[in-house]
């Protein structure tokens, strides 16, 4: 390999999706699942891990095969690879974290249609080496997972007054306030529209801090 895996160019592959080129807030891909599974931090976390696994797997496999995949059926090949990885994830979740898999229900299967994955395969993995594709996958999956967890944090905290973290379990934060002072949880936070608004607020804050992202007015 002529350049090191952690060269400046490669580090950019990881850093960009976290901010300047975030798949959800800048490219607006993968929004549907971000709305659906961000009611609890734990489900968002497991979803993020699942997408990380699928995206890394698919990106690296497609990148390895990029010279042997017939271009006419490349979308089908990509879909088959993604679908197989997703089915694997689904089976593993059912066997090891059954409760979480029940909450994620159809959304694990819908990772197949997550635009981020197909987007990265088409835009990156087909034209780059496996090492770079791996980093690209990690970057994008973290960019996606970060938004999921941030959104889930606010939705769960204000919607249910708890935080359900993986391994640690459920932590009651605002529930005593709700029981003693007449504070009411915002039930709207649990419903999908509030996820969209939370993502919107995130985009607003992100753009106010990162001027590059603001389109010019014509």
């Amino acid at each position, binding site marked *: 390999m002529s350049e090191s895996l952690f060269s400046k160019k490669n580090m950019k592959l990881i850093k960009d999706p976290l901010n300047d080129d975030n798949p959800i807030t800048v490219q607006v891909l993968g929004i549907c699942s971000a709305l659906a599974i961000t009611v609890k931090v734990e489900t968002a976390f497991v979803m993020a891990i699942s997408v990380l696994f699928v995206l890394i797997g698919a990106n690296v496999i497609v990148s390895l095969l990029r010279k042997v*995949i*017939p271009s006419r*059926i490349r979308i089908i090949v990509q879909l088959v690879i993604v679908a*197989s990885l997703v089915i694997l994830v689904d089976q593993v979740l059912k*066997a090891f974290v059954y409760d979480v898999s029940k909450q994620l*229900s159809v959304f694990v299967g819908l990772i197949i249609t997550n635009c981020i994955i197909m987007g990265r395969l088409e835009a990156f993995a087909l034209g780059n080496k496996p090492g770079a594709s791996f980093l690209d996958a990690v970057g994008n999956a973290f960019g996606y997972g970060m938004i999921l967890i941030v959104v889930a944090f606010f939705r769960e905290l204000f919607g249910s007054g708890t935080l359900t973290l993986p391994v640690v379990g459920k932590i009651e934060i605002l529930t005593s306030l709700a029981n003693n002072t007449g504070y009411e949880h915002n039930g709207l936070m649990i*419903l999908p529209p509030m996820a969209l608004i939370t993502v919107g607020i995130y985009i607003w804050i992100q753009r106010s801090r990162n001027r590059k992202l603001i389109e010019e007015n014509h």
Partner: protein
Amino acid sequence: MDVNSNKYTIGFSIVMVVIVALLLAFASEGLKPMQNQNIEREKMQNILKSVGIEVTRDEAQDAYNKYITEEIVLNDKGEQIEGDAFKVDILKEYKSGGQKNFPIFIYESEGSKKYIIPLVGKGLWGPIWGYIALESDKNTVAGASFDHKGETPGLGAEINQGWFQEPFVGKKIFDESGDYQSIRVIKGGAPEGDKHGVDAISGGTITSNGVTEMLVRTLKIYEPYLKS
């Protein structure tokens, strides 16, 4: 080699499909025992929940063996027949013709005996199910637990919450003269002292009606057994 020729494309597809199929088949077979165990333990948890015993999934097996002393299969006349009650898929029994099997689970602890009956029905968006436990008089409700696949959060989905399930305790499924009444979920709230009604969920009418329908239809099947 020409990557874009027809021969190559077809060959590539075949090889890919075979590899993927093998891989997934192995994964599925390998993980199946663990997945089935999860499903079984969840069922045990739900059965125990109807008599007020909350256990984690890991404890479910032991607790189930300890408290559930008898599993009985009934036919549609309420006579006891041979069979493995735990393995009966009750949804299939309603659909299938011919010989039907209806399971009933008997809980025994410290001299008290309870009869646990599985329920299945339809909510607004999908299936709902649950277990109802009767005291040893086979009439008074000792507890109920319901769950659902995808009812509306905050409305129909509330059937798996304690505030909806607790009022079932103490209700009766037969009236004083011994006629079958079942238990109904009543919109607008059950009147004070109603022995056969509990409050419905505001905004969750169809799910509430689904619970009523499920109770009326299912408990009727067990009527001969419960009266014997």
